[in-house]
Every structure is written in C-alpha cells, then in structure tokens.
C-alpha cells in the first residue's frame, strides 16, 4: 500500500533489515519460557505487560510450524504461559499485588507442580521484589517457585534467561547418582527433539548403540528432572560462536557437578567438525575402529550425493554475502560446502550493517580460509560496490536478503544444520536453486 513513497527515496542501504546487532538485541523472558516450555507439570508467569507473553507464544508457534513443515510429528504440548498484565497504574503503585493475584489464578486454573516467574523491563524499572513473592508463593502453595528476576532486556539476552533457568533447575532438583550405561542426555534446544540437530545426533549416536533418553532443558517432564543425572554421556547441541558460550559453560558445570562425561570441544556442525565429533564419540565408547568406519560410511554418502548434483553445480559462479557478525556466523563452513560442490567463488562481499570491528574479524576469517584453500585472488568487497559481481554470479549465498535483486539467493541458516544430513540439506537447497528456471525472486531457505 505504501510502497514507493518518499520515505524510501533516500535509502542507500541494500540489505533487508536496517538495524545492527551491536547492542542487546533480545530479551531474557522468552529464554526462561523456552527452558521449560515442554516440561509437563510446569507453568510460567511473565511479570510483564501482556504483549511480552504474546511474543514468546509466537516464537513457539513459529517453531511448531517449522517442525511441521519439516514433516515431523511433534508429540508434546506446551505448558501454560501467563502474563500478569502489568499496566500503567502498576508503575505507580507497584505490581506485586498483581503478581500475587496472578500466581493464585495460575494455581487454581492449572495446578502446576513447579512454577517459574520471569520479570520484564517494566517490572525491573518499577522495582518489584519478585524474588520475595516467589518465596512467599512457595511457602503458601507448597510447590517449588523459581524466579529469574532479570528485568527483560535489562538483565541480558535470551540466552541469559535460558541458562539461568537451567542453573536454577540444576541447583534445586538434580543430585549426582549412578549412571546407566548407554544412556545419553542431549543438552540445549536447537528446535527440540524434532529439530534437525537432535534428529541427526540421535541417528549418528545409534551407530555406537548410544540411546538418547532426554533432551534438557525444555523437553523433560518435571517429574523426571531428578533422574537426569543417571545419563552416562552428555552431548551439548552446540556450534562455534559466542552466543553459545553459555551452553558450553553450563554443560561444563553439569559434567563436573554430576560426574557425567561430555563431548564439548567440538560439535557436529560442518563436515570436518562432524568427522572430529564422530571420532570423539568413538573414543568415548572405546571403539576407534568403529569411529573410522562411521566416518567412511558418512563420507561415502556425501560423495554419492555430490556426484548426483555436480552436473548442475560444477563451475557455477557463487558470491558469498556476509552481514552477520562473527558472533553468529563463521564463513568457513559455507566456503567449504561451496568447494565440495565444485563451485567457483567469484567474490566475498560484506554488507554495510556490519560494524567496523565485525568487518575486520570477518575479513580475517575469510583471508585465513583463502590461504588454506589456496584461492588468494578471490576479491573481498566491503565498499558497497558489488552490483557488477552480482550481475555475473549464478548464485549469492547470503546471510541477508537483498530485496529486489534479481540474483538467485540462498539464505545461510541462522540455526546451524548438523551432521552429514545438515550438509545434504544445504547442498540440496543450493542445487535446487541452481536448477531454478526463470526469475522467481525471493530467497531460498534450507
């Protein structure tokens, strides 16, 4: 309706989004919710305006439909999420009464076995003593009431809320105990048990007769929390990048406290890492020959697949577009995949939305890769003049959509795709994009 108006005339930026992510860009509350969202027996209260609960619900809804779109049959129901509905008048008189009433309402309507309370930026500014309320509620109703009083975005990011919830659960409900051989605990979310990461890890672990019993947090009923430390192996669903530092740190704390071995220094994201990870698993089960055999089998699968797509992918000109900082993205994996498909990397372009510091780090990472791959002549464009190189490209592999640009675009996934199947999915999507007949516009998602 409003396309083409004057507002857009002066626009010089090419990528889809205007913002940069150099400041706090998320909120702690949805992290709290996600950490228990499928833990039967729990309920979550956001001490917040109602819109905050709506955001978390939409995130969950999006995840559910993504799972359905991936032809998976999700079989869990989310636990209740209730907003205390803070309003303007509560900013004057305080929102504690409102929270107390909300807790009573939740107890009456859902009878949870464990209650979690997350606080919003509004509650943070008002200064409500929510921890005291949680303590009082615990005494009144006789159930555990955990509180994450991080004040929405004021207390950190999504991951801070998520990992603080994990720490509270660890401290309160889990004790060291004898291990059950072969029983594995997956640690982290990555779209849950139906997500590609968890499915692929389960498939790969099955080679070694390791059985995934739980995925924690988020997907274990409250009644089973106390059994979690019976697992004999902890597998964090991690990937390289600082945002996941919390997962590694929390997994390390878990492993130490409950005496549970874990595979933490490498993750099955990208083919090289997957091979190393498989060898680590083999080391754990003390069958290194088996590990080599699995790597061979998986590599064979990859080679067989690549053979089928090479007639389309070989020598195709590809440009890599990067607008995602090193905190979220390592270009080496994408570049390796391009090489496997025998595509020709014609340029790497950096978008304006990267900060100068991010640009420097990304340039270093790309230069390192060029040295290793012995491709010193690939141009790296950071001045915005990339129109010509895109005109000549068969495909743009990009972290950001370039709206209205006729080049075929592949969106580099935000959530990493794991293992051999992850490589298949990325290659299949690029292959299908290269097969595309006619200009259909838009961007292809893996």
């Amino acid at each position, binding site marked *: *309706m*409003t*396309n*083409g*108006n*004057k*507002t*857009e*005339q*002066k*626009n*010089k930026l090419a990528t*889809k*989004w205007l*913002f940069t992510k150099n400041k*706090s*860009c998320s*909120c702690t509350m949805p992290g709290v919710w996600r950490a228990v969202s499928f833990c039967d027996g729990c309920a979550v209260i956001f001490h917040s*305006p*109602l*819109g905050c*609960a*709506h*955001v*978390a*619900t*939409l995130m969950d*809804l*999006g995840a*559910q*439909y993504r799972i*359905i779109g991936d032809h998976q049959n*999700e*079989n869990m*129901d*989310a636990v*209740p*999420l*209730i*907003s*205390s*509905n803070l*309003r*303007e008048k509560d*900013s004057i008189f305080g929102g504690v*009464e*409102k929270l107390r*009433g*909300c807790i009573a*309402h*939740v107890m009456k*309507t859902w009878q949870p076995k464990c209650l979690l309370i997350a606080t*919003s*930026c*509004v509650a943070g*500014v008002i200064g409500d003593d929510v921890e005291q309320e949680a303590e009082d509620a615990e005494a009144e109703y006789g159930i555990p009431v955990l509180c994450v009083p991080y004040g*929405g*975005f*004021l207390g950190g990011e999504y991951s801070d809320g998520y990992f603080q919830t994990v720490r509270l659960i660890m401290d309160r409900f889990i004790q060291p105990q004898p291990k059950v051989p072969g029983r594995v605990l997956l640690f982290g979310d990555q779209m849950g048990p139906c997500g590609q990461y968890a499915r692929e890890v389960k498939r790969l672990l099955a080679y070694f007769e390791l059985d995934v019993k739980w995925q924690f947090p988020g997907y274990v009923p409250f009644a089973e929390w106390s059994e979690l430390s019976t697992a004999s192996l902890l597998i964090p669903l991690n990937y390289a990048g600082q945002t996941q530092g919390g997962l590694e740190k929390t997994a390390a704390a878990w492993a130490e406290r409950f005496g549970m071995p874990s595979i933490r220094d490498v993750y099955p994201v990208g083919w090289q890492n997957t091979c190393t990870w498989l060898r680590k698993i083999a080391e754990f089960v003390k069958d290194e020959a088996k590990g080599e055999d699995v790597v061979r089998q998986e590599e064979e699968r990859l080679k067989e697949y690549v053979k089928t797509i090479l007639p389309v992918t070989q020598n195709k000109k590809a440009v890599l577009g990067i607008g995602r900082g090193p905190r979220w993205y390592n270009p080496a994996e994408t570049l390796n995949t391009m090489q496997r498909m025998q595509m020709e990397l014609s340029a790497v372009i950096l978008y304006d939305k990267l900060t100068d510091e991010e640009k420097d780090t990304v340039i270093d990472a790309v230069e390192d890769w060029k040295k290793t791959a012995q491709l010193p002549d690939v141009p790296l464009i950071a001045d915005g003049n990339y129109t010509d190189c895109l005109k000549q490209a068969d495909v743009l592999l990009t972290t950001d959509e370039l*709206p209205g640009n006729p080049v075929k675009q592949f969106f580099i996934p935000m959530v990493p795709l794991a293992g051999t199947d992850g490589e298949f999915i990325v290659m299949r999507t690029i292959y299908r994009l290269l097969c595309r007949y006619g200009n259909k516009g838009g961007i292809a998602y893996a």
Partner: protein
Amino acid sequence: MHDNDFKTSCHHMSTCALTGASAFFDAIPGSFMLINGPLWCYFYAMKYVEDYDASALRRFHCTQPEGNALVYGTEKDLLAGLDFVKANFTPERVFLLNNCSVSLVGDDIAGIAAKAELPFPVYAADCGGIAGDFAEGYEIALLRVIAEVKKNAEAKRDLADVSEANSKNADEAKVSENLNLETIDCKPSVNLLGLSPTYFRGEEDIKEIRRILEMAGYHINAIPGGGSAWSEIMQLPQADLNLVLRDELALKAAKELQAKFGTPYLSVGMPYGIAGTLRWLDAINAVLPAKNREAIRQEAETVNARLQFRSSNMQSLWGPLWFDNILIAAPPSEAAGIAEAVRGEWADTGNLVIHFTQDTALRPQAATKICIAGKDDGAMKETFENWSGGLVMGSSLEASRLVRLKKPFVNCNIVLPAYHEIIATDSPLCGIRGAAHLFERIWNAKLSGCMDEVKSIR
C-alpha cells in the same frame, strides 16, 4: 482482583499497544516510525506490520537504548535515532513511539525532537505494552492523530478569519466555498473508523467495505489507519457520520470526534454474511440514508442465489454442511458477526462455541457457549481437551493446540496469526464478496476433511 486481569497466551492472542500504534501509523503513506525502545520490541512490532506491508522494513528504526538510559534518560539514543532517519530518509513525518519501559522514564520526547532541528515534523506517542494490547495502541495512535486534526482545524479557522477580514471579495469567496460543499454534499459522507490492513485479510476487507458503501451512494471521506493520506485524515471533520467498524479500536475516537467537531457516530460492527451485510447497511441507512441501496440488495440477491445453487449441488453429493462442533475464536467484532453468518446462513451444528479473545458485552444468539479469554480460561482449556471434531474458525493458534492434542478438526483461518495458510488473493472475509469467499472455504474445509479421512484409512 478479577481473573481476567491475567492474560493466558495460549488463549489470548492480542499483540501489544506498540504494535497496534505502529500498525496505525504505518498505514499513513509517507510516514516513518522510530521506536524508542530495545531492538526486541522494535523488531516484533515492525515484523507484525511487515507481514502485510513489505515497505515497513525500510520505514521502521529503533533507538536501542542501553539499560542505563532507563535511569538517565534516552536523549542520546533518541537524537542518534533521529539523525539516522535524517541522514538516510526523507519522510514526510516521523512518529516516535516509546516502548513500555522507556515510557516510564518520562523523557520530554517532543523537546528532544525539537533540539534535533529536523526537516520533517515529529509526533510522539507513549504506546508501550503497559498501555495495553493492540487495540489500545491503535486507539492511542488514532487519538494522537485526532489531536493534530483539531490543531489543523483551529489553524485553518484562524487563517480563514484573518482572510475573511482582509479580503475585499469576501462575498465571492463564500459563494465559492458553498459551491464546493454542494459538490461534496451530493453524496452523504462517512469516515470509516477502526479498520486496519494488518488484520487477517484486512486490506481486502477495507476495499470491500468501501466498495459496498460507495455503491450504495456514500462518499468515503477518510479511513484513518486504513490507508488514508495525512491530508485526507486532516479532513475528518468534513464527514456527515463516523462509522465505527470495531469498537475496541475506535469507539473512543468517535466520541472524541463528536465532542470536538460535533460529528455523530454509529457503532455498526463488521458486515459478515449476505444477510448480515444487508442488515449492516440497513443500520447505516437508518441514520444516514443511502441513495442507491437497491444496487447492493440486487447484488446480494444474485450472489445468494449462486451460493444456494452451489450448496444444493454439493449437498446432493456430500450430504449437508454439518459439523459436530464449530469453534470460533477471534476478537469480538469478528467472532460475533462470523458466528451469526456461519450458523445463520450456511452451516449446521449442534454446538457452536465462541472464544472471544477480548472481553465484550456481545452475546450472539448463534452461540451455544461463550468463553472470554482471561475470564474463562478453564472452560477454554476444556473446549480443546474435550474436542471431538468439527470446524475451527480462528487462527494458527487454535490449530496448534488441537494438533498438539492430536484432535481431529478442519479449519478456516479468520484472524492472525495465520502461519499455516498463504494469502495471495484479494478476497475479503466481510461483505458480499467475503460471504462467497467464506462459504467456499467452509465447504472446502469439509471436503478436504472427508478426503483426509479416506487417505488416512489407506
């Protein structure tokens, strides 16, 4: 304290006031929205609007204040945000929207904006989540714009007074003015209040309502929040009547317009179904007579005959359009009208349950049972848990609940979020075209349900 003070996200699906205000302002061409708040809130509001308006991507920005700004004020962030807009865009105006925590800081937003010496006007509004839900944010935005309408009208009046006193040809000027009025007055004129293209098929509904009213002989003066230009909105007082399509969005604004400019209003709701649309038009006609109502009656008759014919044919093959249960989950304006249309004009059922996602005094007779989100959470939970099959008219949220509970159902989205449907055609839900569209979708829902059952048996 009442139970309905609390909002359960699994039943209550209204977005926050920041989103409602953003949706309203975005619908005024040439506007830029600067959200004074964290990226999280900005992104959520912008994304909601962007789902229907792709240009929103480049018409929204945020100040991203750090935590300290909530103690010391957001002036620095705000000025940086305004500089960004100035450097990169040439908007006709900027709407500055405070998120909920920033609105508690108490910054003098207008004063700060004045310091920035901008080449465009800036209008500020406190519309964070503590102001309420989507409807309340929309209402704040509408009232904010009405305040500008009033200022504009006063400025014009002052100018006219000066001009009249100074003009030697005052009499001629008056004649000219009267002539203009006569031209406009040849059709009764209405403003449409409470419409937004961000609703499910909202843009299509706006077009259909406009089409019906124009065909009936009304002049549409302005649709604030529904696509009207700023200059058109400034002419709001010129209408003979304000029609309130959604009370929750615009009733307060209609009362304000009546108080400020003496324009009467009629709370008329949304027109659903063919008979429902005719009743809706009759209600408007009773207050402000239409000149060509017959044209709409004839169109309604033709379309109705076609639907009856199609229905008979389909019934001879597939049996009656019967559902064991019908659940309608939507805000009051949608749910009440659609419930009457579905049960009164097309489908049969022994049990029609309405889940109103906002509190309302409406009690449609078509409903067997009515639940209100926040008030009847227990009963709403039971609706899902005891569901034995039938038609669900709501959003992807109800579909999500029933999928997770492994309950059988067929569905037809009538509100957002609609994650499991693509909307690419221009069919509305309301009015006569909307009636045919809904009729078609309900029938197709039944047929796909029958086909899915057979496929799953194999």
